[in-house]
């Protein structure tokens, strides 16, 4: 029998990794920073920061339209990021990667360019009860415009998706099945393979919100065979303001443009304008070039450590954290899913999530308190907020131990 409370060993590659993140040397309120708010946004390694600095200090230029050297260099660097992302996700072709501001914009893009032209009154969009607002509100807005209907699959008390019901809700009028891969608030890993399989059997397009999985595990979009997959750079050690949409080329080909402007057109005339092929059709205007360059550096960073190693270690660490928190006086976990990644939500009998957050902060520990953009999920559990600890590759058992110890102080204060 393994000791559930034994701290997981830290692989050598990850011990070193901690030094790559300058912010982790910072003190907060006189204490060393313990950063456990990674589901909100991860920290950035020096190599990503350097790539951005290097770009602005030496290569900065607009892209795609210049014959001069800076522009050629910047274009190559930006497109290199697309190539790397395509390889990272094992996309069939790099034209299947569209750059966006992040997961939120990616979902809105699919809603506008893919689904809206297909959706009539009475058509259905299927999601789950544990979605982030980003995977709820765009569909609600779409339903309002088209008369389509949002179908919401329930979850069990332990925070697992009721997958059978999710699948049974797939009907002849289901125009899209969208699902979060890993819940940002309670850490549930959903069986997306089974969901995608069932959707394919019924010819229903699928969208996977991988905002909380892409940094924790290997994803292979060809193996998954989903139609769309969305993610945010800032949650995977990369800059803010950039993220992406993977879309099967055949789907992207069939879609209308999103925003209009420069760079997404083939021909503009007042008699009629024609548009470029994907991915450019969906990328109007000057993109976030430095962001793209940061994506390339971020992928290099992750690959230099190895996704399997990261995934193995994080799985042990999050289980360790869950077990320690479960045996902490006054703490109650919200959601104990059968398969967990990245995040743990909890409440305390006496102290509200906000109070927990404030007290932990004075100890240098950063967790998030609130509804985590999952109000329906909170309501499902009869609460308005939780405290959430979420990990990344640089966290270790000492971070968890510090958290547990400080929660003891909270318990003391609020009794």
């Amino acid at each position, binding site marked *: 029998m393994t000791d559930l409370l034994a701290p997981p060993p830290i692989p050598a590659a990850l011990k070193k990794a901690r030094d790559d993140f300058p912010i982790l040397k910072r003190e907060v309120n006189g204490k060393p920073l313990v950063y456990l708010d990674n589901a909100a946004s991860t920290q950035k390694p020096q190599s990503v920061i350097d790539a951005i600095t290097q770009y602005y200090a030496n290569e900065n230029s607009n892209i795609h339209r210049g014959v001069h050297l800076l522009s050629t260099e910047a274009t190559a660097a930006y497109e290199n990021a697309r190539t790397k992302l395509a390889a990272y996700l094992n996309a069939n072709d790099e034209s299947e990667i569209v750059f966006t501001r992040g997961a939120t914009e990616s979902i809105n893009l699919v809603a506008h360019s893919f689904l809206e032209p297909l959706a009539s009154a009475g058509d259905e969009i299927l999601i789950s009860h544990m979605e982030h607002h980003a995977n709820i509100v765009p569909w609600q807005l779409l339903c309002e415009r088209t008369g389509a209907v949002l179908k919401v699959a329930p979850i069990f008390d332990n925070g697992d998706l009721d997958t059978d019901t999710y699948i049974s809700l797939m009907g002849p009028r289901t125009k899209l099945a969208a699902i979060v891969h890993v819940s940002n608030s309670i850490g549930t890993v959903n069986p997306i393979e089974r969901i995608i399989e069932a959707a394919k059997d019924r010819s229903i397009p699928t969208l996977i919100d991988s905002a909380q999985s892409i940094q924790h595990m290997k994803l292979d979009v060809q193996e998954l065979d989903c139609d769309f997959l969305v993610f945010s750079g800032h949650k995977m050690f990369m800059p803010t303001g950039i993220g992406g949409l993977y879309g099967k080329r055949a789907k992207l080909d069939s879609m209308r443009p999103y925003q209009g402007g420069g760079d997404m057109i083939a021909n503009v005339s007042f008699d009629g304008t024609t548009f470029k092929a994907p991915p450019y059709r969906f990328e109007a205007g000057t993109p976030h070039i430095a962001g793209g360059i940061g994506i390339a550096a971020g992928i290099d960073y992750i690959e230099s450590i190895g996704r399997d190693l990261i995934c193995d270690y994080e799985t042990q660490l999050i289980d360790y954290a869950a077990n320690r928190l479960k045996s902490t006086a006054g703490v109650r976990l919200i959601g104990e899913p059968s398969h967990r990644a990245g995040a743990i939500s909890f409440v305390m009998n006496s102290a*509200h999530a*906000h109070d927990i957050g404030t007290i932990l902060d*004075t100890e240098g520990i950063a967790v998030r308190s609130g509804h985590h953009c999952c109000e329906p999920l909170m309501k499902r559990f009869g*609460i308005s907020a939780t405290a959430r600890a979420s990990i990344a590759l640089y966290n270790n058992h000492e971070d968890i131990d510090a958290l547990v110890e400080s929660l003891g102080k909270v318990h003391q*204060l609020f009794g």
Partner: protein
Amino acid sequence: MNSELKALYRDTLLEHSREPKNNRVLKNADAYFELKNPLCGDLITIYLKVSHCIVSEATFEAQCCSICTASASMLTDQITKSDIEGGIDFADSLIESLLQPGISIANLENEEIQSLAGVKSFPSRIRCATLPWEAFKGAVSRLV
């Protein structure tokens, strides 16, 4: 525990949050107002019963943190039996004194309410303290 934290969670405040006064729905209220802090999901409703411009009863119902709860508890205490205009003035100056870094809240008479002053060192918690007072103003605006 550092000194700012001690100043935030003063005993007065903790007592109000553990055993809040007037923490119930007022069935026959003349007005009520629900307000949410969208940043965290905190939710509070203030209920008022009023006759001849005097608050005869004030209660609240909340899903919120200790500071918001304590603030609501003190609020209902403070405004019961006071005239509406005075209550609004009090709410306005409390909100202002919490929001403005320069202003202290020492000049408000109610000593218990001064225990809310600790939030001023925690910018992200100020809204927790002001939320009930904003809801109170909302409820007043709904009186006929």
